[in-house]
């Protein structure tokens, strides 16, 4: 080991330390933005290529072998129908489960088991949920493969853990004093929950649910497993029709041999999917901001 004695050495040492500090900071900053820079570049490419293809005709036409005639309409409608159903199923289920865990269970053993189970479920690969949907709804319950309701059931199970956790957080954020005020007025537990806890927690619950739905709308693998159609030429009529969804359709387009599909139709589809997701997220953020203002005011 080198022994530093002179003032010159000490200064050089301090300078080296500073330089190392600075270099490391730059390295950290670069790696932090690394993924973001690449993603922004990729999204820019996509938008540029989509620009020439994304028009009213694309939004209102069925898919086609000919790129200039291809459109996303049936898949767009399929995605919206499916997600609407998923929202309808997950919201009551997720809120009920969260209410039980936060308001009723106390610190019981079963509540602990359920909570650990939920965090485990959240880490199960989505394709495995597809197998669950295939095994239960299609094989055991004899529902038709690839219809909207089966897709919606499967996606519901997939995002349920996320919705429960978000709802739990929103319920936990309601101050305890509000509940006690309600009990003090003679309300029962359920009256307190319905009249006080749920209305205060609802914006938070809705925000979490919409964010989860925007994740569900981008899911492909579970839909493939339950047999969603790879291309379908008319929009689904009801919840028992076979359907395709936007991510399915994008997947099919990336499999097409012609360049117009890879560098035109598929980018246009990606832009539509991202736009739908973005507007859902924006709506969720809008809800949250409005709620925060209300609390302050």
């Amino acid at each position, binding site marked *: 080991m080198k022994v530093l004695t002179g003032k010159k050495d000490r200064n050089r040492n301090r300078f080296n330390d500073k330089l*190392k*500090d600075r270099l*490391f900071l730059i390295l*950290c900053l670069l*790696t*932090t933005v*690394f*993924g*973001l820079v690449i993603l922004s570049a*990729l999204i820019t490419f*996509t938008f540029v290529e989509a620009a020439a293809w994304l028009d009213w005709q694309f939004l209102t036409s069925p898919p086609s072998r000919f790129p200039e005639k291809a459109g996303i309409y049936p898949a767009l409608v399929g995605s919206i129908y499916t997600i609407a159903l998923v929202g309808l199923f997950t919201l*009551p289920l997720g809120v009920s*489960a969260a*209410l*039980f865990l936060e308001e*009723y*269970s106390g610190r019981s053993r079963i509540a602990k088991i*359920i909570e650990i*189970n*939920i*965090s*485990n*479920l959240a*880490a*199960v*690969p989505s*394709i*495995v*949920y*597809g*197998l*669950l949907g295939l*095994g*239960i709804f*299609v094989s055991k319950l004899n529902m038709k493969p690839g219809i909207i309701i089966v897709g919606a059931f499967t996606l519901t*199970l997939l995002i*349920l*853990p996320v919705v*429960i956790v978000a709802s739990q957080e929103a319920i936990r954020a309601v101050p305890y004093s509000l509940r006690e005020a309600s009990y003090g007025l003679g309300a*029962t537990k*359920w009256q307190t929950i319905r009249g006080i806890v749920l209305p205060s927690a609802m914006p938070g619950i809705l925000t979490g649910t919409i964010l989860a739905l925007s994740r569900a*709308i*981008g*899911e*492909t*693998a579970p839909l*493939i*497993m339950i047999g969603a159609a790879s291309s379908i030429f008319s929009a689904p009529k009801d919840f028992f029709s076979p359907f395709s969804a936007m*991510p399915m359709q*994008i*997947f099919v387009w*990336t499999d097409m041999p012609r360049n117009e599909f890879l*560098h035109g139709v*598929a*980018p246009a589809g*990606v832009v539509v*999917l*991202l736009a739908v*997701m973005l507007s859902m*997220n924006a709506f969720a953020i809008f809800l949250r901001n409005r709620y925060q203002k209300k609390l302050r005011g």
Partner: protein
Amino acid sequence: MKVRDLKERLIKYLLFFSALLTVAVTFGIILTLIFDSIEFFSKVSFLEFFMGTRWSPTIKPVSFGVLPLVAGTLMVTFGSAMIAIPCGLLAAIYLSEYASEGVRAILKPALEVLAGIPTVVYGFFAFVYITPLLQKIFPDISAYNALAASIVVGIMIIPIVSSISEDALRAVPKTLREAGYALGANKVKVIWSIVVPSGLSGIVASFILGISRAIGETMAVTIAAGRLPRLVNPLNPADWFEPIETMTAAMVEIGMSDVSGQSIEYKSLFAIGLTLFAMTLILNMVSYYVKMRFREVYR
């Protein structure tokens, strides 16, 4: 009064059953996978499945050796970890040790966006933009390759590593850092000798969770890495330039072909699914254990 009590109790049970549904989902997954796998293993021996080196469910002679698929999955997992682990950890260090509150408030949600992009879109990015770019650097890379898939999967799991690691780093008390400075250490030294070792359990847990996510990733690897089961070796550079097939991609391939509910290919879906589920479950449990067992508790 009686009616009201009854109603209260009824509601409690209703809510309880909603919560119990999540436990039913877990059992549903396990039972579905196991029952259909049992039927699969009554036709294909364990040995053939877990030791077989050829995966060919449709082309005769059929063979159900899962090893090439496992190798493909491990390859992409390894490659994506090479990106996500350094980037995620350094991003966590930046956010927790350097960034001002304002910068953090922008960068943290921005990083989360990386995990929010649908995986099919990542697959599209890899196949349509990244691979052609790689072809300019390595002319002999094929249109489907493990490298492009690994890059996008790596980017996708950066936020998992960074956000959990950041939580671990922020939990390290300021006094420990100050003790380091008082001994004359500079910031880099404090970070690597004090902060990172103190938060190590959370950091390792984040790596394991990220890896588990990469193993289960489906669409990006299906689109970009191809559908060619090969017994690859991650240490062989040439294998990165060639098409491979992961477990999840094989499942998609079977799922897309119109298989009847009784065929052996259909049953093989569940055998692969069970293998995949077991791998991710074990990793998730290890991650949880590491986080809890080796956690430093500061007061």
